[in-house]
């Protein structure tokens, strides 16, 4: 994506990498048996292990390990047979042990890549540097009372995957595309729900700029708290422009952590110059090296679903869909599955149109996910069948669709109950046509001179039949009676 910042002194290029924290979908925490669900009463989902009480020991949740491996496979990444949990030591009230158990020198997943479909139809690979498992911290509440902070440890110890990309991003929009693609992959493999509002997917961006053509990297700033798709591009662009302005005015970029203020749309330095961090990482002696055997990795690979890139290619190939439509349909696994259920034995392009236009539109209007769709794919299929059989018109079909979507009733039942079936019986339509011709001699004369006026008569018949008359049949009948052959 060609995206540059035109400064006073020339053109500048963005260099950006992302660090994503994705909360692992699991019932229990990474090292304890406490629950992970969102929104519980404070400190009710805390084990003495999470609270860092004396003598408590971590035991690794094997399912979280599997989730990380699955994610690694989805990122087309190397799976490391041996990885090490280390302690990252620092003091903070939401970090009860005084250290975070994380992976440092030996992460569970190594290099991989994610393919982005750019708007110009090309693809771009964003390199994945690594993925590692670590514990989440607790939550601090400030300002409830003067001079104190309240601490809730419910999130403490929940498993996170930290996913780090190479600095391959060159445009703010690419970061958004990457996040969307990553979210899609995570949801496909079922390892993270990707919910940014609840904090299950959090993003930090490392941003630097350099003059176009320069190959060395500039000094980067880490932007924290870009926790919505909407703000990712804004935050990166703001920060890149800030750095360009700074550099063009003879300043230098200081390596620092900055916070994105969504309300003001700007970034600001996060910490006043506090002591340099020295996390004193060392292997956690309470945990053994994490060893994966080939059989486990092979089983997880076999369990992997068809991933979006492969599915998209297949939709184009098998169903003859456009790359764009296929891309829209595969973004969510549930949507792709829905589409396939509708398309089976039907016209796939028509199915794709209905899913993308009518269904997605109706879902968006109600703010629903595809998982919560009130209209099952069999119902939409039934509607398309009614259309294909010529039993309802396209106009009626849309009406039936909305009614089925709202009420949950089946399209056939709606059509029957409301008598919406197309009238294809000549005996039923002929008297209406005859009356119409008799009542409108002037228009009849017109029509004989100008056959386009037949359309007016068709409209009148449709009106009179509540849209149920088969328009082709009406057209044929009128032409015959008007002697237009």
């Amino acid at each position, binding site marked *: 994506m060609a995206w540059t910042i035109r400064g006073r002194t020339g053109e500048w290029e963005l260099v950006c990498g992302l660090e994503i924290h994705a909360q692992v979908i*699991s*019932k*229990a925490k990474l*090292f*304890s*048996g*406490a*629950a992970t669900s969102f929104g519980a*009463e*404070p*400190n*009710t*989902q*805390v*084990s*003495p*292990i*999470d*609270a860092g009480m004396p003598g408590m020991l971590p*035991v*690794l*949740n*094997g*399912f*979280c*390990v599997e989730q990380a491996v699955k994610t690694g496979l989805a990122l087309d990444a190397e799976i490391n047979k041996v990885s*090490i949990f280390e302690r990252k030591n620092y*003091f*903070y*009230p939401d970090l009860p042990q005084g250290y975070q158990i994380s992976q440092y020198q030996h992460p569970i997943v190594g290099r991989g890549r994610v393919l982005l479909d750019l708007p110009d139809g090309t693809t771009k690979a964003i390199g994945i540097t690594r993925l590692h498992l670590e514990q989440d911290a607790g939550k*601090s*509440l*400030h300002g409830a*009372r003067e*001079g*104190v*902070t*309240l*601490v*809730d*440890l419910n999130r403490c110890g929940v498993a996170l995957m930290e996913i780090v990309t190479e600095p391959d991003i060159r445009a703010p929009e690419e970061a958004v595309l990457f996040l969307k693609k990553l979210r899609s992959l995570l949801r496909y493999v079922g390892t993270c729900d990707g919910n940014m509002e609840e904090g299950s997917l959090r993003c930090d961006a490392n941003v630097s700029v350099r003059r176009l053509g320069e190959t060395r990297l500039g000094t980067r700033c880490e932007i924290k708290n870009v926790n919505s798709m909407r703000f990712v591009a804004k935050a990166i662009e703001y920060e890149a422009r800030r750095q360009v302005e700074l550099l063009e005015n003879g300043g230098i970029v200081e390596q620092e952590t900055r916070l994105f203020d969504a309300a003001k749309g700007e970034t600001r330095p*996060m*910490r006043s110059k506090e*002591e340099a961090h*020295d996390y*004193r990482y060392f*292997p956690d002696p309470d945990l*053994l*090296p*994490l*060893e994966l055997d080939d059989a486990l990795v092979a089983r997880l690979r076999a369990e992997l679903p068809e991933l979006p890139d492969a599915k998209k290619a297949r939709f184009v190939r098998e169903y003859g869909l456009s790359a764009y439509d296929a891309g829209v349909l595969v973004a969510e696994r549930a949507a792709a599955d829905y589409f396939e259920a509708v398309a089976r034995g039907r016209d796939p392009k028509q199915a794709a149109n209905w899913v993308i236009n009518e269904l997605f539109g109706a879902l968006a209007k109600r703010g629903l996910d595809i998982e919560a769709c009130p209209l099952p794919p069999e119902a939409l299929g039934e509607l398309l069948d009614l259309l294909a059989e010529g039993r309802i018109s396209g106009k009626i079909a849309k009406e039936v669709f909305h009614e089925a979507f709202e009420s949950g009733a089946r399209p056939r039942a709606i059509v029957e109950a409301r008598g919406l079936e197309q009238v294809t019986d000549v005996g039923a339509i002929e008297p209406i046509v005859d009356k119409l011709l008799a009542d409108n001699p002037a228009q009849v004369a017109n029509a004989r001179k100008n056959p386009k006026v037949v359309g007016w008569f068709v409209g009148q018949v449709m009106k009179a039949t509540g849209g149920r008359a088969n328009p082709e049949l009406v057209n044929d009948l009128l032409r015959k009676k008007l002697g237009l052959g």
Partner: protein
Amino acid sequence: MSLDKATVARMAELARIALPEDQLEQLVGELSGILAWVEQLAEVDTEGVEPLRSVHPIRRSWRADEVTDGNCREAILANAPERENGYFVVPRVVE
């Protein structure tokens, strides 16, 4: 290696331990002595030796993904120096 006062003070800062000036003075001597003593290790040839990670080969035992713990707020908060509405109360954290 002999430590200086600034280094010991920095370690105390990292470890969040308040040290009065007189203790700091004494610790510089003691810690320097200990470090000088442990530096004998430099004599050992460890070329190509992997650092020890676990003393015996122990078969891994992973936890099943089941909720078996938690839901014990009273036990978690029982020893808290200060608590309020189910939260731990701590001195204000400055961002």
